[in-house]
């Protein structure tokens, strides 16, 4: 699948995603400069982690206004796949492609640790390598990952099954202690109603190779390029 990774000034996980898509999954992958206005035919667009524009003001707020974001929006609205990881997730919230917002982590400190995630949906292409209820281990590294939205909006999100990953303990239980950044409803990753736009705080690209001691993230990136075509939702798996 033709993959594009958008590079903003301050992106710093762009090369890591590139490495996995290009060298591990052997996909045709290229970088897209934030000032470009076309996605050059990329079917999967990745907004990578990092500190775009220094994360000044609010994480992702300035990148949301980059020229390429108009193209990303069109791509998303046409059902194309968009994956936002960490800072990329924050951008998706700031552009409104995904609902909600981020606050600073509960203890107001940057958190760089491995967390456990429970897969809440397996009827999405993204999660085609996982089963619902699977518990994954992935690193997080962020200061603003404390997901929030209004009560009604959260209810709506749950009702539509847009919560894709939740912070849990190693046994898959929702425990307050496992929700380190304090996110509402332990939300770690969500998708849009169409399922073609996915954002998550943890870094699958940092745990996609055996040599690094953890391959739990490879499935997600494999899912991102699975299926082919422009369809982001798993071909009507009945759910």
């Amino acid at each position: 699948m033709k993959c594009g990774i958008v590079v903003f000034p301050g992106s710093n996980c762009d090369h890591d995603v590139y490495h996995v898509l290009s060298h591990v999954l052997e996909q045709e992958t290229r970088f897209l400069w934030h000032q470009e206005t076309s996605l050059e035919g990329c079917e999967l667009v990745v907004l990578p982690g990092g500190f775009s524009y220094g994360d000044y003001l609010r994480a992702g707020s300035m990148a949301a206004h980059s020229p390429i974001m108009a193209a990303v929006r069109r791509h998303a609205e046409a059902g194309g796949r968009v994956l936002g990881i960490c800072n990329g997730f924050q951008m998706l919230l700031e552009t409104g492609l995904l609902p909600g917002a981020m606050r600073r982590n509960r203890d107001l400190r940057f958190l760089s640790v491995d967390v456990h995630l429970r897969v809440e949906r397996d009827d999405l292409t993204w999660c085609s390598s996982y089963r619902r209820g699977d518990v994954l281990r992935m690193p997080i590294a962020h200061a603003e990952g404390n997901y929030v939205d209004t009560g009604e909006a959260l209810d709506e999100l749950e009702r539509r099954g847009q919560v894709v990953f939740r912070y849990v303990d190693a046994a898959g239980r929702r425990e307050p202690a496992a929700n380190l950044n304090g996110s509402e409803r332990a939300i770690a990753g969500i998708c849009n109603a169409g399922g073609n736009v996915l954002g998550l705080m943890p870094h699958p690209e940092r745990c996609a190779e055996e040599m690094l001691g953890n391959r739990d993230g490879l499935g997600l990136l494999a899912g991102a390029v699975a299926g082919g075509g422009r369809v982001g939702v798993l071909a009507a798996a009945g759910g």
Partner: protein
Amino acid sequence: MTTTPSSAAGEPVVDSALAADHGLTGEEFGGLCDLLGRSPTWTELGIASALYSEHCSYKSSKIHLRRFPTRSRRVVHGPGENAGVVDIGHGWVAAFKMESHNHPSFIEPYQGAATGVGGILRDVFTMGARPIACLDSLRFGEIDGERGARMRHLVDGVVRGIGDYGNCVGIPTVGGETGFHPSYNGNILVNAFALGVCREDRIFTATASGAGNPILYAGSRTGRDGIHGATMASEAFDAESEAKRPTVQVGDPFTEKVLLEASLEAMRSGVVLGVQDMGAAGLTSSCFEMAARGGAGVDIDLDLVPLREASLTPYEIMLSESQERMVFVTQRGQEEAVVEILSRWGLEASKIGRVTDSGRARLTFRGRTVADMPVEPLVDGAPVYDRPAAPPADLRERQRAVDCEAPEDPLRALRSLLGTPELGDKTWIHRQYDSTVRSNTIIGPGSDAAVLRLKGTPSALALTSDVNPSYCWLEPRMGGRQAVAEAVRNLATVGAEPVGMTNCLNFGSPENPGIAWQLRECIEGMAEACRAFDVPVISGNVSLYNETEGEAVHPTPTVAIVGVIDRLRDLGTEGDLHLVLGCGFWRPGDRIVLLGSDSGEYGGSAYQRLLQRVEAGRPPAVDLEAEAALCGLLRQSRRAGWLSGCHDLADGGLLVALAECAMARGIGLRGAVGCGPLALFSEGQARAIVTVPGSRTEDLLAAAEAGGVPASEIGDVGGDRLVLDFDGGTVDSAVDDLRRIWTEALPRAVG
């Protein structure tokens, strides 16, 4: 530009008193006047004082630094460049360096530490190398109780500062060390290390060459911040330092990140001849050092320097330490290509001058020549002092033999030690650092050495930083040796061959003969160890005057060594690399073997300092041959793939090391040793514990015997308790219990 430079109206009259205020001795000032053939202008005085400062000139340490071995078949660039460079194989080189930011961090911990990281990263990427890892070595004073309030604030600020900067730039901090000791109550130490890699044919140096070639200024604008930082770092603290507060620089990691990307891209473009960052003493040191390296001169028009405030004077422009700024020299006529790259990254660039063959630095401002000075004599001819050195008057007292009492209850002693911030778990610190960005980290913080894979090669790099200031205070030469030995040993635990060393020498005032002696002795000890292990010193930094009102810090020669693991795969035959290379038990049933023998000194040990509350006697002897034998054995066993784990014995001794291995994953051990309760806490050097599957013990023991390394099987991994019989009793504790004490120690202490 032939006018003789002069001070302008409103500028102070330069005389020896003003020179003294700038830290120049009468002799230095006289020499400067002779050199110029006249009295310096105000701007020239500022420039000379910066170049002659200890921080830039190394005037008190140069003579000792010559003791270090600096060459090996791998060294590409030794000391003298922004960072040293070594060959790491497969067509790659590594550039690395360590630098202190002690004084700024004491004044403003967050910005001080952050800009320390920024500075060391620039040192690395000016060489054309892409930074891939940082380490931080920190020393704080007492953090307990009322008196510790300020120190807790410093710990918090420093850790946030390091984290926020490195995290934003996207360079993982993969290790470091953190110590606490009252000698740092008035002067904390913040030493930052950065490592970068690049293809061997892509290395750059900071050289200005080719008369007529343009000099470009890039990055942040110049502000009034940090003026005289270099001079400040060369003075002891006193009440007046408070008044110097406005000199604190503020870092902007975002600008650093784009400067990093743009600089590397510009260097790849082929039109850049030389690059230099503006570090200590800002534009002054970058211009003078670049010109000196190229045997050239420079003409700079200070009106063209981008300023944050229009009112800056030439003096201030030359001495500002505003962060995130670089100077490029390009091929004549090709500067536009560089400007284009910089502006694509959103950076301002302006041509501020050109290279000349005059050998002089000529600066103009508003149509007036404000400085015209010979480059080479100011940079290389800065004064060098052989300061009087003599053992401190209280050395005897320090080294007096004291009886170390055996613990009545070794388990209680173990619990007390694990509950101190010194030996407690450092996760509270390093979880604020992104340690996995760039996706190379196989082993991050929390082990003996960090291990990073090198994408595209079969090999990996290992890195560690170490020093034991108490040992250095009691017996500097032994302490210097030990720092190097421990670092080499930490690398050996993961099977890495040391390829180069950098260091940061943190001491009190060299004008005190006792401290000059400590400096000399520590360096001598380090140099001995470097020679024994064949480790060249390729870069480093000296931070003197770390004292407040006559109270100097413990001598702290921080050592960072980088090692290479040639074939990473070979090490993983006993399990996943991250399990096998991290320190900690993971597979029940593995045999535990203790390598090395105890030498029996307790001076400066954690047990003595933290439990007996004394610091006296002789530190553990460092037998360089025994260390080399141990490290050779560890590397051999790693390469052979025999080991499922390894951890060296360091602070706290054998029992603490075993507890650390058990606490890592909550898996215990059952074992027995033939020593008494006190020896459980001895920090005798050249020792390590390794774990091996039963089928490998024979191989290991045979290799140990052949290598002359004492080895004894002391038990088996398994269960959830740490059970160890010793001569006279048994230590028996739930691992979880120890783990709780250990993990809570630091968070509790920092409140």
